[in-house]
């Protein structure tokens, strides 16, 4: 018996899902639709195999892998440093937080220290990344709701300002490849802090505008409230993290729990939802952006002078001691973790990404059952997936 045969023999479910129970005996009436991989609002090449009763979803199976490039295998065959630009391409909206998560894991593995200034830069760039990710998500969510691009374009207008900052710092707008083990690649260019202060100061104005445009809109509320509900128990069990978890009312933010970096120095609050529906997810993100601004403002004032990289960290020929480490940060989409096993060679022996988008998708079916196609699209939008990360 080959493995392949066994594969086919296995895979029979041991318990019957709600979806299957609903669908029993109604095969003739149900409509099977493959939404995706080419579909306007699946956020990339993502597929949902949906079974519909009229427009009500009775079964939904997410299918992905269309963008799978086996990032982990590539990383196991290259040096630690060479994986850094690949992490940019996981969640291409938040390459700086991806960089940080990876750098943090390697620092844990190798026991490297990060200079003070680099910690500040990391914190600032990560929070800017959070701002732009949440802004874009709100835009995309509204786009999925059919708001013909207006919120999306406003979001992109603001994102552009942050991207300009990131570009002047890292040289690239999206694929930053900025952090290094034990610090950051380069120092802030002159005038950067002032430019960042200006952007941060004006951001709340944009958030106000955005909220006037949307948050009170009756159609938006009707479309999102009570849609895609996710209970706190299921969210915890399913390992849902990030704003999606907090929208379900669970207070778990790694910036507080792990207090990695210098997050402990700045007071900020964690907005929590109570209903766990799409509206809560949207609002939690909007509120989180305001909290991010509260971190950014003092951090930009306090940023000290000093080196940006640990002088002990080697760029070439970097070989951590044998061992393993799991490092995680609170990415904008949720817990982004890197699990690394070193065998003392220049390449990681095992390199594993814990992608928040993928694991947040686990509950997609639970969220969408019994709702309509339109709700499924909105629920998917509120999960905030990036296929680069889901498929890796």
């Amino acid at each position: 018996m080959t493995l392949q045969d066994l594969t086919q023999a296995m895979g029979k479910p041991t318990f019957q899902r709600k979806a299957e129970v609903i669908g029993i005996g109604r095969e003739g009436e149900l409509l099977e639709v493959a939404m995706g991989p080419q579909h306007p609002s699946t956020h990339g090449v993502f597929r949902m195999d949906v079974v519909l009763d009229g427009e009500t979803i009775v079964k939904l199976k997410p299918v992905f892998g269309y963008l799978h490039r086996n990032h982990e295998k590539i990383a196991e065959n290259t040096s630690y440093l060479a994986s850094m630009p690949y992490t940019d391409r996981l969640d291409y909206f938040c390459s700086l937080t991806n960089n940080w998560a990876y750098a943090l894991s390697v620092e844990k593995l190798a026991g490297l220290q990060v200079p003070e200034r680099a910690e500040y830069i990391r914190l600032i760039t990560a929070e800017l990344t959070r701002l732009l990710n949440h802004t874009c998500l709100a835009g995309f969510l509204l786009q999925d709701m059919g708001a013909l691009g207006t919120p999306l374009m406003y979001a992109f207008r603001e994102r552009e300002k942050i991207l300009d900052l990131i570009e002047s710092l890292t040289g690239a707008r999206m694929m930053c490849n900025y952090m290094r083990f034990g610090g950051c690649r380069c120092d802030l260019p002159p005038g950067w802090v002032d430019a960042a202060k200006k952007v941060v100061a004006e951001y709340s104005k944009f958030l106000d505008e955005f909220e006037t445009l949307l948050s009170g809109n009756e159609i938006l509320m009707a479309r999102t409230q009570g849609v895609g509900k996710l209970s706190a128990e299921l969210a915890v069990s399913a390992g849902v993290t990030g704003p999606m978890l907090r929208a379900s009312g669970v207070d778990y933010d790694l910036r507080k729990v792990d207090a990695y970096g210098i997050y402990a120095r700045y007071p900020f609050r964690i907005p929590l939802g109570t209903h766990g529906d799409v509206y809560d997810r949207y609002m939690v993100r909007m509120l989180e952006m305001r909290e991010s601004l509260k971190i950014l403002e003092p951090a930009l004032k306090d940023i000290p002078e000093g080196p940006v990289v640990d002088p002990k960290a080697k760029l070439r020929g970097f070989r951590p001691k044998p061992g393993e480490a799991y490092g995680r940060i609170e990415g904008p989409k949720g817990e982004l973790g890197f699990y690394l096993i070193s065998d003392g060679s220049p390449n990681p022996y095992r390199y594993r990404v814990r992608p928040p988008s993928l694991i947040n998708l686990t509950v997609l079916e639970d969220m969408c059952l019994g709702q309509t196609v339109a709700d499924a699209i909105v629920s998917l939008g509120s999960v905030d997936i990036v296929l680069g990360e889901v498929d890796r």
Partner: protein
Amino acid sequence: MAMETLEQIKARVEAAVPGAQLTLVKNDSPSAQHSLLVSVEHAFAVAKFLRDDPQLRLDYCSNVTGVDFLDAELSEKVKVKKVVDGVEKEVEEVKKTKRAGYLEVVYHLYSMALKHGPVILRQRISGRSDPVTVTSLTPLWRSAEFQEREVFDLYGILFDGHPDLRRLLMWDGFKDYPMRKDYVEPDDYEYEPTAHDEVLEKAKAHMPKHEVKA
């Protein structure tokens, strides 16, 4: 809140789950994330204990992954994870202790309720070519559902008790397990032709005739 040490946890688990034998796997790196090795038979009970125990309440399974360890020769000074590639004949004749390869599934458990962690749980199965089966922990943590599917997909480890064990990232007709260390990439996909001579040669075989440049 400070968590118990792994030794304490081990002792309590062994007391609570009859027959369970846990091994503490030391981690020498500066991260000092040690882990608990549990046998496949007792994995479910142990995991259930870890999840439900009021002092631990590891309600959140953050990360599930497979690790592949090839057959290896252990030299004297290195303990477990030292790996030498290849199983060539000449090497075998050299007198060194041989370690049979094995597969591992690693679970990183945290507690959202008590905000502590991680407790790292490993299921290890020796033998890499036979059908390798471990216990699925999806019934305990939904978050393991897709991750175990991914491990199955990329490592070929079967999960007993998984509700929907299908390939996740590779397509259904795919025959191999690409994350295994001895995986040989097939020469049957379309190359993006880069100019390296050997790659270009390889690529030529897959390119339509008219597109091949001299």
